[in-house]
């Protein structure tokens, strides 16, 4: 019997028999904690293991990305607790200047194809974008992982999703992702590893794959992989992290719990209305809805390419008077690219507000929050009631957010 992608990666990290439903002990290549969860990891560790060393300091990291630099006393304390623990155990910290931990782990080549990575970020399965098995966990689990370098895991079933057809600007990977969410809901991919296949996935860039894989969490899936790629993607990953992109494919005779086909031919821009990421419409259906602010960033849409999509709409135009367009690059590296490519200047001239790198409003610790009555169009991944504040959040692509901020109401770039 052949193996699916997730079964292959897990088998590479365990002596146990790997098949869906079986619990195995899995070796972890990287274990990490953020400024949320991290302080509890430090506290649990000191209580349970006192001065004993972590399993391997070179495979253990803190990544601060939620409230960076700390703008609340609680986070300032919590980050300092983590720094103290890190110093004592000789663990590296990607500190408040570095940006979103999951992205930094990919940039540094620590999270790459075939590896296993855990951390206190429920969107860590985003690492599927580079063929890495990433998984978010609670602080008890992560404490144990720091100490032992292992975790137990129930091998998930796999779901095959074949994407048919292609689409053109202004439709983007975010629109594709929202449309898949509309089709799968929170049931079809629940507790499963998802393999996204089909010719139109081959040309997806790293940013595109990140966008798609980041929202497998909202599909209630364990992780998503996009195994088809060709030479340009291999080169992109080499330039990005210095890593040679390894190909991991599901075997033809592997067992999949289900197969789904989704036709995206001619797909128009999509938008998820409050208060669920699966509450998805064509942008044209909600066109004209008044907004007060826009947010471009988050682990889903915070890379150079995402912000270039926004600039494609914004260049030579202005954000409408009274509308806030809040922009948060994913990482310091992205910030440097924005400077180099002149994107920062274009964004600035359009009237956008640009912050330092980080998670943005998803975490309540950074910009992107909404007040009661505020309507925000965001490139984030969650729009649950109360998540980003008391306002209403719509989820869309960078291009749709940019266009909507120019007009002051929900619209597609083509409407400008």
């Amino acid at each position, binding site marked *: 019997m052949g193996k699916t992608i997730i079964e292959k990666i897990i088998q590479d990290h365990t002596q146990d028999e790997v098949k869906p439903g079986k*619990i195995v002990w899995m070796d972890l290549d990287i274990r990490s904690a953020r400024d949320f969860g991290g302080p509890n990891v430090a506290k649990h560790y000191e209580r349970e293991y006192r001065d004993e060393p972590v399993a391997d300091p070179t495979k253990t990291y803190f990544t601060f990305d939620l409230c960076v630099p700390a703008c609340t006393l609680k986070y300032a304390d919590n980050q300092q607790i983590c720094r103290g623990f890190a110093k004592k155990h000789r663990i590296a910290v990607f500190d408040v200047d570095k940006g979103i931990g999951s992205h930094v782990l990919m940039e540094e080549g620590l999270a790459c194809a075939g590896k296993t990575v855990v951390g206190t970020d429920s969107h860590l399965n985003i690492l599927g974008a580079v063929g890495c098995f990433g998984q978010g966990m609670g602080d008890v*689990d992560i404490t144990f992982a720091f100490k032992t370098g292992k975790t*137990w895991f129930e091998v998930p079933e796999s779901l095959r999703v074949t994407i048919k057809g292609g689409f053109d600007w202004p439709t983007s990977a975010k629109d594709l992702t929202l449309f898949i969410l509309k089709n799968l809901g929170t049931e079809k991919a629940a507790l499963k590893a998802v393999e996204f296949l089909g010719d139109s996935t081959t040309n997806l860039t790293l940013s595109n794959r990140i966008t798609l894989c980041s929202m497998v969490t909202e599909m209630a899936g364990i992780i998503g992989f996009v195994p088809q790629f060709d030479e340009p993607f291999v080169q992109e990953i080499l330039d990005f992290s210095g890593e040679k992109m390894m190909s991991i494919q599901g075997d033809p005779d592997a067992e999949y719990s289900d197969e789904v086909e989704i036709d995206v031919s001619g797909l128009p821009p999509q938008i998820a209305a409050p208060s669920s990421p699966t509450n998805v419409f064509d942008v044209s259906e909600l066109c004209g809805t008044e907004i007060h602010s826009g947010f471009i960033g988050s682990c889903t849409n915070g890379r150079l390419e995402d912000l270039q999509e926004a600039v494609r709409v914004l260049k030579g135009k202005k954000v409408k008077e009274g509308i806030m367009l809040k922009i948060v690059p994913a990482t310091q590296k992205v910030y440097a690219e924005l400077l180099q490519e002149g994107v920062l200047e274009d964004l600035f001239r359009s009237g956008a507000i640009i912050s330092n790198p980080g998670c943005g409003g998803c975490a309540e610790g950074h910009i992107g929050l909404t007040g009661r009555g505020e309507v925000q169009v965001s490139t984030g991944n969650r729009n649950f009631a109360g998540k980003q504040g008391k306002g209403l959040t719509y989820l869309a692509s960078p291009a749709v957010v940019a266009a909507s901020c120019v007009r002051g109401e929900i619209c597609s770039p083509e409407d400008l």
Partner: protein
Amino acid sequence: MERTYFTGKIWVLSDLEGQLIENIDTDQIYHNAFLHITELAKMGEYALGNLEGWKDFPKKAQPGDMIITGRNFGAGSSRQQAVDCFLALQVSLIIAPSFGAIYFRNAVNSGFPVLKSHDVERLVLEGKLETGDQINVNVLSGECTNVTKDFSFGVLPMSEVQHAIFQVGGLFRYGNELR
């Protein structure tokens, strides 16, 4: 002490129509208004405090009682309190067709028996599992007996790992014993 056999009275978490309630999320099990409570003993009184029809559960439950519930129990957030509140009430175990992924991990890591069963939906529908029934459960073999109604049924046996963590009382102690 080997903890393999459990015996106790069951609570079937059903709605007014007698259907097992599905997708009970962590906010219904333990509302976020009480997340600041850190002392385990104080968490019991909030168990199921946000679940329609079951808000008085903490007053009715006795130590050793068991819970039978619908699929995807513990969906939602990663809060450990949604497990700890049952430990505080000394509920001995929970049986459901399925659990939320993080909830299941948290329960196992706390040494709290959460057991999956393909049978309970049907048995509740047929009136063969009712609140107040006395049942015996062997968590290792998965064999169960409804003593009140005199028949046997099954739950999926605990995996080796889950059982080992459970026997020593949690992931940290389990880890210590490995050394």
